[in-house]
């Protein structure tokens, strides 16, 4: 390269300064370039109507969702119902139904789940004295 030593020094400094930004981008810690996780997609809670029908009374029942009891009780009539709100993702939900009867005979119990503005979904469980089952409700066809 030709030119005065001062001019060459100035050119070198300018060249180095021009490299600072891309070098900094290239050498920064990968964490800085990793996209931040997007906010958790929360499926909004839906209003649900639950109805239990047992062919034998009286019966005791408990329904659990996500490891937490959401509805429990004891009934002398064949039908009981309640309204609740739960997240209902497209993949569906699992409800654990535990039910027991005092009479020693084979009994059917039906759980009907109706999401707001949607069709009713039905699941039936059979048992003698008691029954316990994980029931999956999904709106996906």
């Amino acid at each position, binding site marked *: 390269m030709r030119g005065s030593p001062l001019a060459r020094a100035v050119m070198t400094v300018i060249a180095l300064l021009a490299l600072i930004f891309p070098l900094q981008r290239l050498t920064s810690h990968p964490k800085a370039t990793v996209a931040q*996780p997007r906010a958790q997609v929360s499926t909004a809670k839906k209003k649900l109507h639950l109805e239990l029908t047992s062919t034998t009374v009286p019966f005791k029942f408990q329904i659990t969702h*996500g490891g937490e009891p959401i509805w429990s009780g004891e009934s002398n009539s064949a039908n009981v119902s309640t309204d609740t709100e739960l997240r209902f*993702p497209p*993949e569906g939900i*699992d409800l654990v139904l535990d039910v027991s009867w005092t009479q020693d005979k084979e009994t059917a119990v039906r759980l009907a789940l109706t999401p707001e503005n949607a069709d009713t979904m039905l699941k039936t469980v059979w048992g003698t004295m008691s029954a*316990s089952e*994980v029931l999956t409700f999904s709106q996906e066809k």
Partner: protein
Amino acid sequence: MTIEKGVFMCLMFILLSNPLASGADVLKVASFSTLLTEIAQKVGGNHVNVAGLVKPGQDPHEYQPTPDDLKQAADAKLILLSGKHIEHYLDKIQQATGGKGESLSVGDALPNLKMKADPDEPQEKAAADANGMIDDPHWWNSVANVEKATTVVRDALIKLDPANRADYESRAKAYLTKLEALDQWAKRKVAELPRDKRKLVTSHDAFQYLAKDYGFKVYAIEGVSTETEPSDRHIAELIDQIKKQQVKAIFLESTLNPKVTVEITRETGAKIGGTLYADGLGEGDGSTYDGMIRHNIETIVDALK
């Protein structure tokens, strides 16, 4: 009765009631699967002598029988194979045994899931069908499959040793009752995890059967076999999926090197959810099938909650 007479009577009772000690014929079984070893021992009890040739913690994809293993297989009346193409040393067994003992590929009697074969892996390529699909060999990760396998082993023992049919039937029934309780427990435990969070990222593609039973979607870092390294492209796609699906945790496996998995957690921000038993029984919790399933399900559910 003196003490000496009492001790003598007790010893005589033990000797006469134990077929091993009394010299009665004991059915020799050689097993090339840790799971089948447990099943054969549970169902066979004192009527069988089971040589577990694939040891707990050993990777069945990489296992090669030693000359001593082949000798034990040659001496056995029943050779239990996992099936679904996992035993790539089948020709060695056939040569060693000369077809003397009865070989039973238990997995081949069970429901099958298909998955894409790795074209870079010769054994998978050879076993693949016209569409490049291979049988998923990890049937033991479904409790329902293990229940079916128990009945297959029971029937094989009865066929070879019909005199002890009643014993095999009652022992199988007891084991099946425990498996049914295990399946019920697993269903309840998995129900704690919302279905939209059931995304399972593991070191290799070993959990399709578990996923089908309990509603998970699997994203595997490697293919079916543990013998090949994942490609850069596959890793990049997986990182993209993990971020997109907001997967909270990814899992290591007891028989695999965790290096790639750990790197993916760095890239995605997902945590290591724990170590799973993927390829059969192992040490610690996974030394029994019940312990293995409970460990895997608890680890997965607790990490993804």
